[in-house]
């Protein structure tokens, strides 16, 4: 102690203080000590700290606290600070309103903060003992609160502060140069003045700032919307968000960032998003149509920020996809090549997937929307199962297309994508079987490897049951190859002649192939039929108890034909091929029916249609279909000539061999069904397939109902339908009408019965 007062040395004070807690000092000494302290505080506030010794002041304050004079000190301290603020600081601030107000305010504040901290250090004991125990503000809090009350809440200071601050932000928004440091300092000050909360910051700055921003963004939106350009609008909004974020980060309190962005989102996105998305010429549909990947990405980013934004986008995209998809892939477009239709659909999907990955960040909702719409479009068209199978058929058929294996595989992957969303999978299987059997039997398949990889894909998707029959077909093929090898070595050992015929037989297991139980009749010429009988006895000797039935409509033959210039005569199989007047030799690739027809002309030059009919015994429909490509086509490519020369056939029409037949190729393939896509299933065939599938579905539904009822014993109609749908989903969607008829059938057959108490519930009858 500089002025020792009642005590002789500091050492003594300490001893007294600790060992004799309750010892009082007289009031006079207290007053003297307080005067010293008071003077020191005033000095500190005047920034005149010279000669003040911290430990001395601390000890005085400590002692006065111990002497239960804290209340007096507390009140006195408050009074001194108040006095200082109201008579020194406030007038100074009011005076400096003209000139660099914010700068001076901050300087004043930060000086004041230092002073308060010094005072706080001196009064630590008072804070600890008195303020804390009496629930009163700490010295620091008093300092802050008084500054607020005495200086900032002065109306002109408050007004000036707000105006200047908001004005600076306005300037900053306009891109003018402002002292951002200043803004940041003031914001920091307001946050400290809010003590633990942010009330003062909100009152003095944030609230007016936000409400001013709302107005600004509203007028900005209006202006931008008037330009009717969604892409420009979105660009501006994105820039705006970025700018506001940056500003908040670098000069406001960090917590304002989130709030100001919310305001932008609310005012510029939420309020106008429908207008933007649906904007004509520049909205979402326009962007999709014109592949505006960047703009779409921006729309996704911005709308994804607000609730309901993505949903709105997806809804809009939904209706666009549906419209566009139906244009591309609708039933009415039946005239168009099915393969091209599927390709168009796949191209469209690829485009959507491009958007999904490039613009929509592979968002789940967007993906679901796209897939959902494709599912709708694809299943709306009842031709889908057939078309899809045809598409795969097209890629797996050997032909003029020179696709690499990778290309084929990628086509198959895409086809599988459509298969996944196909509802009538069983229908697809029927078509696929037909097309596969064509490929296998006419040796038109690209490669067994590729075929099997497609089957594997289907298997993975639908399980082994789905592909069991398809795999059976492959098995038959390989067994047939072995059988034929055995047969060939067999006929070497026995003295039987096949008359030079090269016989190839494929034994197809019935039920696995799309064969017809009653194959169309045909009386084939004796040479091939004898050859077949040789095979039959060989095969039946090996496999006792089996039956072989010829499927004429599925067979084919290579026939040697010799055309004698403009002269005459055709010689068919090998036997007569070596005539002296040979002019042109060809191998004709024809169906079994066509072979039967052509070989007639080995015996006679002309036949009427009626005669052909009688000789071959082929049913009319098949006969007409077989004949047409032989006599109708480019004149030089006709094998037969009909008299009269027209497409229509009458019974008396006369057919002769066309010796003027010419072709650049040695091997000439006769098209089976001209006019249609090669191997396309004719319309009637398609109808038949549908009928067959419907019958099979009924059986499947009935079987499933019996299974379910057997395990559940008693079930309500609705529960039954749910269960049923679940079980059958893998291959098709049972329609409720069909389900009802199936239930009726089962009730009639007494498998199940309605319960007496509830018409809509059923019980299983054991």
């Amino acid at each position: 102690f500089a002025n020792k007062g009642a005590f002789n040395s500091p050492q003594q004070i300490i001893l007294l203080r600790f060992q004799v807690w309750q010892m009082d000092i007289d009031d006079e000494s207290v007053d003297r000590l307080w005067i010293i302290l008071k003077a020191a505080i005033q000095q500190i506030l005047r920034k005149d700290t010279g000669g003040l010794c911290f430990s001395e002041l601390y000890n005085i304050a400590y002692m006065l606290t111990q002497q239960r004079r804290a209340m007096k000190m507390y009140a006195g301290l408050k009074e001194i600070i108040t006095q200082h603020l109201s008579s020194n600081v406030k007038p100074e601030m009011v005076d400096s309103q003209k000139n660099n107000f914010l700068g001076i305010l901050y300087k004043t504040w930060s000086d004041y903060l230092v002073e308060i901290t010094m005072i706080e250090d001196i009064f630590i004991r008072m804070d600890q003992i008195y303020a804390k125990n009496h629930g009163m503000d700490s010295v620091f809090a008093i300092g802050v609160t008084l500054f607020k009350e005495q200086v900032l809440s002065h109306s002109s200071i408050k007004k000036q502060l707000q105006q200047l601050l908001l004005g600076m932000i306005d300037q900053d928004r306009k891109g003018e140069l402002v002292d951002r440091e200043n803004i940041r300092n003031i914001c920091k000050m307001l946050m400290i003045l809010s003590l633990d909360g942010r009330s003062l910051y909100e009152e003095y700055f944030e609230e007016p700032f936000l409400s001013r921003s709302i107005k600004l963004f509203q007028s900005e939106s209006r202006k931008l919307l008037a330009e009717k350009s969604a892409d420009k609008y979105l660009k501006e909004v994105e820039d705006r968000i970025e700018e506001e974020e940056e500003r908040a980060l670098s000069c406001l309190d960090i917590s304002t960032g989130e709030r100001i962005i919310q305001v932008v989102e609310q005012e510029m996105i939420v309020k106008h998003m429908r207008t933007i998305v649906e904007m004509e010429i520049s909205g979402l549909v326009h962007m999709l149509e014109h592949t505006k990947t960047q703009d779409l990405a921006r729309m996704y980013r911005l709308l994804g920020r607000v609730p309901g934004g993505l949903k709105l986008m997806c809804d809009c995209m939904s209706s666009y996809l549906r419209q566009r998809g139906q244009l591309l892939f609708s039933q009415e477009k039946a005239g168009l090549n099915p393969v091209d239709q599927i390709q168009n659909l796949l191209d469209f999907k690829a485009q959507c997937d491009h958007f999904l990955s490039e613009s929509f960040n592979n968002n789940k909702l967007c993906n679901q929307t796209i897939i959902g719409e494709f599912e709708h479009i694809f299943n709306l068209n009842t031709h889908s199962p057939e078309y899809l199978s045809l598409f795969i058929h097209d890629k797996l058929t050997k032909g003029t297309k020179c696709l690499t294996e990778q290309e084929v595989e990628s086509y198959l992957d895409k086809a599988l994508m459509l298969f996944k969303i196909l509802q009538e999978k069983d229908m697809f299987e029927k078509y696929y079987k037909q097309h596969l059997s064509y490929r296998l039997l006419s040796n038109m398949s690209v490669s067994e490897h590729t075929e099997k990889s497609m089957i594997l894909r289907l298997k993975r998707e639908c399980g082994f049951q789905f592909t069991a029959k398809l795999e059976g077909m492959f098995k038959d093929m390989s067994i047939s190859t072995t059988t034929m090898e055995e047969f060939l070595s067999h006929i070497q050992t026995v003295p039987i002649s096949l008359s030079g015929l090269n016989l190839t037989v494929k034994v197809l297991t019935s039920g696995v192939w799309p064969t017809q139980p009653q194959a169309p009749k045909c009386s084939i010429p004796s040479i091939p039929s004898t050859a077949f009988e040789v095979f039959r006895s060989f095969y039946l000797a090996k496999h006792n108890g089996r039956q072989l039935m010829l499927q004429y409509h599925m067979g084919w033959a290579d026939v040697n034909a010799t055309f004698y210039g403009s002269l005459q005569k055709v010689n068919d199989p090998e036997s007569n091929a070596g005539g002296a007047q040979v002019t042109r030799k060809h191998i004709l690739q024809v169906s079994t029916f066509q072979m039967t027809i052509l070989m007639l002309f080995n015996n006679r030059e002309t036949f009427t249609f009626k005669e052909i009919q009688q000789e071959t015994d082929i049913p009319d429909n098949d006969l007409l279909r077989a004949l047409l490509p032989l006599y109708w086509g480019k004149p030089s490519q006709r094998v037969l000539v009909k008299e009269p020369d027209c497409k229509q056939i009458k019974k008396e029409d006369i057919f002769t061999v066309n010796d003027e037949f010419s072709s650049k190729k040695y091997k000439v393939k006769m098209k089976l069904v001209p006019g249609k896509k090669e191997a396309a299933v004719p319309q009637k065939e398609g109808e038949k397939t549908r009928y067959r599938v419907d019958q099979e579905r009924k059986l499947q539904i009935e079987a499933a109902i019996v299974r379910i009822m057997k395990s559940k014993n008693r079930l309500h109609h609705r529960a039954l339908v749910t269960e049923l749908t679940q079980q059958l989903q893998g291959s098709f969607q049972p329609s409720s009408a069909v389900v009802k008829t199936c239930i009726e059938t089962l009730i009639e057959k007494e498998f199940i019965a309605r319960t007496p108490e509830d018409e809509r519930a059923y019980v299983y009858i054991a």
Partner: protein
Amino acid sequence: MFTGGLNESMQERVVIRGVDAESMSVIIDYCYTGRVTITEGNVQRLYAAANMLQLEYIRRACSGFMTRRL
């Protein structure tokens, strides 16, 4: 105290009033080792010294010590 802006932060030699030599020794040891030895004999003075020097850890340790011994 040494950074607050009053005399002590400007002086080359600082007279620290109100701290006895033993407490100061304990405090300096603490500064170097992070350990502090509190006894019934030094706890009160140590508490006062730590409070002034704003050594929060020692202050808490002392008040804990005294609470346990009340």
